[in-house]
């Protein structure tokens, strides 16, 4: 290097180095004891998190004689109230997953990590666990003191109580998860008789242990180092995304507002550190957007509370885009291409699911033409084709269906036409069709098979096209 760096370059380098020194990354060596303060976003967080109550209580809903929502894996069925979805309809699940994934992208592009801050099970369970911790061990200061204190009866009692409650929640989580896949009442019965299947035991154990470890010990470390969504979502945030942000123009330079220290140029930030104290991941929002921020907006509550106390307007930390902070105009949401495109994909997926659910046939027919032989000449000179009809019955009862066919003139079904089909399964049957040879003007002609239930009050029907094959002309 022959050229010496200019003083301004050196100054810039100094700034960078200083920033790097101050940059603090918590790799798990420090337990975050976040302060709890009330406020608007705290309330919203409780409400949004309570959606997980569904996990615990959803399985107890009944519909007719069975669980309302049940993933019946052994029988390859999914019950959703009065709808029964069989593996044949599972393409709808792919659309649902597409919808949810794209929705995650759309929401993140619009308003940052809403999922992480308000809905994610890791956030919600950690929130519950730390709430219990506070009830057992007191405020963050008391907790830090307790952590450092030597073990005595008092400390042991508090810790035991906390861990017991945590473990109970973990076990309940494990059982509740399994309850979606098997009848919940039978599950509890088998559980108390210790007669669960090994699959159930292992799943409950796995979910219990993971819940306990992740919510009690891993906490924000999971979001920082393990979770891929955190990284994917971080990549989708840009200058137009509305996120919890510190208004540095208004806040800086910080001033502690000591008596007789009124600074004309001081910003609104009083450096009270409340925004850091309440942060469940231990980041300082005033450093700008960063990977540790799960965008739970609790710092907004804390800052607003302080601003109220010192008589300054709220919103020093608020939901705002980087463009907004800089005073630049933002495109309206409906003009932002990625929001529009993701919304269209979501709409397409929803329409697909809607079409799928509305067009689920109660009975479904598939037709396979026999390949060996394609046709057989009969003694009377007619040509016979053999088909395998597969009839899927999604009704709740066994039914009898009548098989008919339309196609070449003179067509006749020579096999039995009434067939009993069991519910929830595919019944295959061989069907023989004969056509007089003189009617076979071309080698291959279309033939349509119809099935119709004969004994139920409301007739269900389905049809499927195949071909009738004769000798080469």
């Amino acid at each position, binding site marked *: 290097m022959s050229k010496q760096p200019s003083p301004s370059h050196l100054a810039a380098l100094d700034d960078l180095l200083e920033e790097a020194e101050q940059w603090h990354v918590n790799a798990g060596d420090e337990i975050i004891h976040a302060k709890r303060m009330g406020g608007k976003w705290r309330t919203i967080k409780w409400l949004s998190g309570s959606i997980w109550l569904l996990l615990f209580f959803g399985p107890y809903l009944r519909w007719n004689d069975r669980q309302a929502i049940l993933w019946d894996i052994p029988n390859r069925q999914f019950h959703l109230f009065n709808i029964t979805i069989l593996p044949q309809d599972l393409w709808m699940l792919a659309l649902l997953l597409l919808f949810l994934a794209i929705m995650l992208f759309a929401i993140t592009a619009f308003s940052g990590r809403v999922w992480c801050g308000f809905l994610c099970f890791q956030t919600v369970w950690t929130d519950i666990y730390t709430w219990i911790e506070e009830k057992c061990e007191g405020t963050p200061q008391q907790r830090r003191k307790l952590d450092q204190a030597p073990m005595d009866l008092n400390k042991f009692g508090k810790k035991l109580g906390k861990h017991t409650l945590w473990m109970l929640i973990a076990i309940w989580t494990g059982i509740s998860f399994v309850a979606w896949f098997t009848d919940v009442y039978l599950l509890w019965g088998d559980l108390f008789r210790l007669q669960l299947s090994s699959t159930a035991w292992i799943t409950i154990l796995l979910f219990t242990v993971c819940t306990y470890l992740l919510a009690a010990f891993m906490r924000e470390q999971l979001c920082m180092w393990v979770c891929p969504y955190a990284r994917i979502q971080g990549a989708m945030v840009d200058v137009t995304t509305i996120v919890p942000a510190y208004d540095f123009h208004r806040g800086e330079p910080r001033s502690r507002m000591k008596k007789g220290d009124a600074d004309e140029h001081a910003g609104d930030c009083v450096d009270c550190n409340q925004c850091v104290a309440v942060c469940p991941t231990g980041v300082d929002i005033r450093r700008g957007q960063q990977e540790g921020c799960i965008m739970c907006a609790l710092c907004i509550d804390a800052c607003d509370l302080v601003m109220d106390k010192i008589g300054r307007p709220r919103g020093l930390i608020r939901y705002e885009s980087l463009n907004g902070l800089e005073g630049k105009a933002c495109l309206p949401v409906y003009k932002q291409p990625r929001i529009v495109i993701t919304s269209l994909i979501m709409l397409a997926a929803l329409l697909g699911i809607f079409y799928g659910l509305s067009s689920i046939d109660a009975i479904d027919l598939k037709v396979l033409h026999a*390949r*060996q*032989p394609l046709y*057989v000449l*009969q*003694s*009377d*000179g007619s040509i*016979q084709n053999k088909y395998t009809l597969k009839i899927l019955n999604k009704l709740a009862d066994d039914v009898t269906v009548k098989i008919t066919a339309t196609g070449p003139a003179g067509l006749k079904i020579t096999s039995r036409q009434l067939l009993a089909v069991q519910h929830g399964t595919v019944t295959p049957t061989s069907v*023989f069709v004969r056509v007089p040879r003189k009617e076979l003007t071309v080698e291959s002609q279309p033939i349509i098979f119809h099935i119709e239930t004969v004994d139920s009050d409301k007739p269900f029907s389905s049809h499927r096209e195949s071909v009738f094959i004769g000798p080469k002309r």
Partner: protein
Amino acid sequence: MADKNPFPGENNTGHIWDDNIRELDNPIPRWWMLSWYASCVWVLIYVIIYPSFPIGDKPPPGLMGWTQIKEFKEGMAEVEAIRAKYEDQIKGMTGEQILADPGLSDYTVASVKVLFGDHCGPCHGSGGQGAPGFPVIADDVWLYGGSIEKIEESIAKGRRGMMPAHGSKLAAEQIDTLANYVVGMAEGKEDPAGKALFMANACFACHGMTGTGNQAMGAVDLTDSVWRFAPGGVESARQTIAHGVNFPADPESREAIMPAFGEKLSSHEIKKLAVYVHKLGQ
């Protein structure tokens, strides 16, 4: 190699190349070592529980006595247990009774398909479509009768077609006339000259006065649309009339032999096969 270590305090091994490239003695990460120890323990447990390396002729059986063949047999026993429900019912039934029960005949067809593929498919085709010289069994024409008993008999005892050769007895034109007459029969044509030859050569003795055949001896029905020997038609008929079927004196005679399976297969299997064959075309 330097005599005096120029990089003290960094835990290197003393191996130094090119002045500054040196080998450090960093310990393997603890998590890695722990996994490795756990793997060693796992291997020990595995060796104790399962049959592993050979000692002498046979590997030690392992604590659980597990073997692959045992697991296979258990799996087969499971399948047999599922089948037993149907097999027990079928055992006491005749073929006709099985056919009358849609559920049992479906089971029979599904379970005996492999046997058909092994023993019948090579000549009659995987779907009963036949092959040159071997009859189609997916149609409604039965040389020896299409009842279950008759099909069982065909499978168990085999069949041997028989038709004398007429090449030495008849002139070429006569054979031609006969062949045309026989083909015309299926199309409903009349031919007095052909009919006279048909009577004079005692064709009626086996094929019947009206040519409808005789299932007791496997004489084909000449009036239907299906031909025993592909591709059918005048040329085919001429060949059959001239050289006969299984006629020992004529080396060009057609072959029509169905082997007997009575010793190879049990009567239970033959009964199931008969049901399968019966349901191939109806």
